């Protein structure tokens, strides 16, 4: 995963609450066994015209299809973004489309975790702060927002300045692009010792009969 710290970009506003992972990436794209190639399917049902048989016609009224919002690296949405299914494909699609950060008042737990494993910054701001940013990016698609992970701030050129909280360990991993498995294996000795004791707790074994 790529390290990330400071991101300055225009933003794509999606002013809806409860955007679920079925909307972010519909199920028909979950049959693939690859980890890449999901960007083109991001928000598929909202992005493409339903009436065309091959679904390739872009809906002009959808924010990601508006030329002025192309190349936005920040997505702004309302509360409970990423609720529903655990599919990490949602985080892959967001990342592979080109977004490096999502700003919202709250995120669903599993999506939150998946995004962190894919180098996506999730910045939780207050509802009022998000509203301000949604309005500014809607009114002026060229409006630039800066997210500074190290400083935990979201700022813009109109004087917007908000702080966001982030777990220090998650921040450290994002800043350094660290792989979780390697980090856990630093504790292999503790793991070996825990496991040798825990093995005797036969109630913890999935298959205890035989």
């Amino acid at each position, binding site marked *: 995963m790529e390290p990330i710290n400071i991101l300055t970009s225009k933003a794509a506003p999606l002013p809806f609450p409860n955007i679920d992972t079925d909307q972010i990436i519909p199920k028909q794209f979950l049959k693939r066994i690859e980890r890449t190639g999901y960007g083109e399917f991001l928000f598929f049902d909202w992005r493409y015209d339903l009436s065309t048989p091959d679904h390739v016609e872009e809906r002009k009224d959808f924010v990601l299809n508006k030329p002025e919002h192309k190349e936005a690296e920040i997505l702004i949405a309302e509360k*409970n973004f990423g609720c529903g299914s655990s599919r990490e494909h949602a985080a892959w699609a967001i990342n592979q489309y080109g977004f490096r950060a999502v700003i919202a008042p709250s995120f669903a737990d599993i999506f939150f975790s998946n995004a962190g494993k894919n180098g996506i910054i999730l910045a939780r701001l207050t509802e009022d702060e998000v509203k301000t940013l949604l309005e500014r990016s809607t009114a002026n698609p060229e409006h630039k927002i800066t997210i500074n992970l190290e400083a935990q701030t979201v700022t813009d050129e109109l004087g917007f300045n908000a702080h966001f909280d982030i777990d220090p360990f998650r921040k450290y991993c994002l800043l350094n692009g660290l792989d979780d498995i390697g980090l856990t294996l630093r504790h292999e000795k503790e793991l070996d010792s825990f496991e040798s004791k825990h093995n005797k707790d036969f109630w913890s074994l999935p298959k*205890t009969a035989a």
Partner: protein
Amino acid sequence: MSKAPKTLFEKVWQQHVVAEPEGEPTILYIDLHLVHEVTSPQAFEGLRLAGRKLRRPDRHIATVDHNVPTTSAYDRLHIVDQIAATQVNALRKNCADFGVEFFDVQDASQGIVHMIGPELGATKPGMTIVCGDSHTSTHGAFGALAFGIGTSEVEHVMATQTLPQSKPKTFRITVDGELPFGVTAKDIILDIIGKIGTDGATGYAVEYAGSAIRALSMEGRMTICNMSIEAGARAGMIAPDETTFAYLMGRRFSPQGAAWDEAVAHWKTLPTEEGATFDRELHIDAATLAPAVTWGTSPGMHATIDGKVPLLAEAKTEADRKSFQRAYEYMGLKPGTPMEEIKIDTVFLGSCTNGRIEDLRAAAAVVKGHHIATKIRAMVVPGSQAVKRQAEEEGLDKIFKTAGFEWREPGCSMCLGMNPDILQPEERCASTSNRNFEGRQGRGGRTHLVSPEMAAAAAITGHFTDIRKWKQTEGASR
């Protein structure tokens, strides 16, 4: 060690702490990982690329459920959709290469992952259980700490048998009293989601308690824990008791003989102790509940069967107003429409929420002696091979088929429509599944979540029907 009274969650958590590194998440041991075809291929591939093995192949169980056709055994063995077939074949190869026990498509133990864990007795109280599927919360019904994970976490569990986890807060939801006639576990959980919102339990592990919960069968408890994620909670738990032990006794992977007694003795130490505190509490009086029907595109958007599609004025916040407006349009519903007047096209009975034997029995009791309404498409998809066999032994398949239902092979099916079972645009479905999101059951499809009894009654009349009135004339099953 603190002597303060502990919750069920705290006990299970503490018994699985491998390390608590300063300033980092806790490293939590994972007892059981359930694997299915959709969220695992990239994880196995990651292991291969890094030259890693499974640390504990004996702690993983795999099956195929999301993609598999439900039409016939032949169709399942010859999947036409080549992308789906590739994914199923990838799981076969991965399980063989990495030494994971795999229940293939026609195996006697195949089924939805959340059905087979309990059926095999692999799911047990006090365990930590994960799966790359958000409905892993189902297993919490046994007093396990069970939660859904993403594919990177799947790979992490495969490589280390652990997960770095920040400890969630605790939330006890107590449902006391007797459930009114015609009200089921599904109605309890829909009511909870409506009350606290679809993000109401985000960041919490929920414990369901109270006399109405204790009175439920394991099937009912699983229905409740299953939909915890629909309220934002990764995990929902219910303390193990005699009902739990009776369910597990004699199952294939359950302990036997002296080991069984020892296990039960351990399980009895798990329930939340008197005086233990939770970060949040909610009390619900079971007597106030009624059969629920969702009207919108989020599980929290529901009304009681004798209610109406809410008016815009009833939206409490600006966000709700926007969601309501979008939902009216997507669902093709006018505000103020009585729920009983909503006509349906399709009925789906199944899923990890309501695809168990008790669900099929309850629905069959409603259906018996009737026929589905004209132009209705109705299907029963048992959650597992075991449920299907049991239902057939009891003759439930005949009741459904005589009434005009299709009787299918087990799988996730129309709950998420990854296999060929999907809704057409604007097709309206009474579904016993868990999500009514836009496009969930097929692009443009309109999903209404209900209990199995309510789905069955709707299939007969062609519109949502108050099961309480129906049952008074027909005789009740539960």
